[in-house]
């Protein structure tokens, strides 16, 4: 019980350092953009495929269930609401941890192991500024972007199932959705959540890399910890945010 608490404390101290050393003049725009490419653009394939299939299977299941109550019309609403409010942000954040978070952790952990972080320090270049901050900001931007794309693909998956498998009218599918999904309460709240998740995922990935033991086991362990810690804390934060927003 003591150890996770201690680890949490260290992660918070680390974040405090990273943020307190942030200066507007030293923000690395080019490097941040590069990190958005590595963390975001390179996660597109997994996000697009997972999003499409989640939409497909979710529609299948809701159609099957709702037809029993004579409410099949509501399938598109159920799909959109569960995506925008919960599934999109949560699943994307967990996929992101597996795809991009692990590589951020491994990269920084190896930089620690091969003394690249020491070398930066010795050149009077702040590794927080050069390595940590661009990745934090990139996560903050990339995850919401991925969530939007995930939701989009899942809706397409839903439409695909409703129209081509069930033979429904696409207009009524969209129409029912439009009538009951609210921009602020559902869509934007989901987006707000995903910004929080993005920050969390990037923070944990960078932290575990930073604090990895400078050995191959150390890096391997840190990578695993990133996935576990992100998954757990995303779900906890999701509950907290949902409770506040509803």
């Amino acid at each position: 019980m003591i150890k996770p608490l201690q680890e949490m404390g260290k992660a918070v101290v680390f974040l405090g350092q990273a943020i307190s050393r942030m200066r507007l003049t030293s923000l690395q725009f080019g490097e941040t953009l590069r990190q958005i490419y590595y963390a975001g653009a390179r996660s597109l394939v997994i996000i697009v495929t997972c999003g499409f299939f989640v939409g497909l299977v979710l529609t299948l299941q809701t159609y099957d269930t709702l037809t029993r109550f004579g409410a099949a019309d509501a399938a598109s609403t159920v799909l959109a609401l569960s995506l925008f409010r919960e599934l999109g942000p949560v699943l994307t954040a967990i996929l992101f941890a597996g795809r991009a978070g692990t590589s951020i952790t491994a990269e920084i952990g190896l930089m620690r192991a091969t003394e690249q972080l020491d070398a930066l320090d010795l050149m009077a270049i702040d590794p927080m500024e050069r390595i940590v901050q661009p990745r934090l900001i990139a996560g903050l931007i990339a995850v919401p972007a991925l969530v939007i794309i995930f939701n989009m693909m899942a809706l397409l998956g839903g439409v695909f199932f409703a129209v081509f498998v069930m033979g429904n009218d696409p207009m009524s599918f969209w129409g029912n959705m439009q009538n009951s999904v609210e921009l602020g309460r559902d869509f934007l709240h989901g987006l707000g959540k995903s910004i929080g998740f993005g920050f969390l995922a990037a923070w944990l990935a960078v932290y575990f890399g930073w604090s990895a033991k400078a050995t191959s086991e150390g890096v391997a362990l840190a990578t695993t910890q990133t996935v576990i810690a992100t998954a757990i804390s995303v779900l906890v934060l999701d509950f907290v945010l949902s409770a506040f927003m509803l």
Partner: protein
Amino acid sequence: MPDTHSQTAQPTIQFSDVSLTLGGRKILEKLDLAIPQGQVTAIMGPSGAGKTTLLRLITGQLKPDTGRVLVNGTAVNELSPKALNSYRKQLGVLLQNGALFTDLTCFDNVALPLREHTNLPESLIKNIVLLKLHTVGLRGAAHLYPRELSGGMNRRVAMARAMAMDPQLMLYDEPFAGLDPISMGISLRLIRQVNEALGMTSIVVTHDVHEVRQLAHQACIIANGHVIAFAPPETLQEDPEPLVQQFMQGLPDGPVAFHYPGPSLEADFLDGDQH
């Protein structure tokens, strides 16, 4: 009345009464050492004696438990983070494994400190970088990534990077390990030349007893947490001290333990069946 000789010999780096414990082991014990300015000083000693640790004390990465590390009169271990940063800008360090940035080309590796700390135009930076790479014989490899080079070449690029800012103090951690005789000779002369041309102070950690003669103005041997000899390399050979003789002649047994401290042989082997 100070003459020129005693002026060059005034200490740049002074360890006074430095003790350090790492992982429960005493690495340095009440160590005193004065390294003169403008010269090449070799630091030798058996593996694990604390040579890298000594360099890390000079760079401020480690702080001694007791005692002070003075560089040009300022105590490195008492500097604020900000002051430490500006101190490090005048420092060139070659780490034991080179530590090049693997996502940057050789050119960008060497250019990094220049881009970060100066406002020089890119054309000038290009000239400086190519010049530095040329001196280590790797101008042609400027566009390559570190993983496309051998270990020895990596270290030479790292040397060029360490010299990029023309520092006043250069620290080399085993610059010759893994170099072929030709590159070794080149690196050796390079260290000496740069030292003389720029009037910098150089500290070279090395195991190589013979190279030290061509390289260093004086050599320092540390073992068991102390400085056991500090003299020009030519005179070390004649040092009567048994520790020094053991090291210079490469004898396995003597005052310096070849074995890492542990239980006695009997305890480990004869009672092996108890485990």
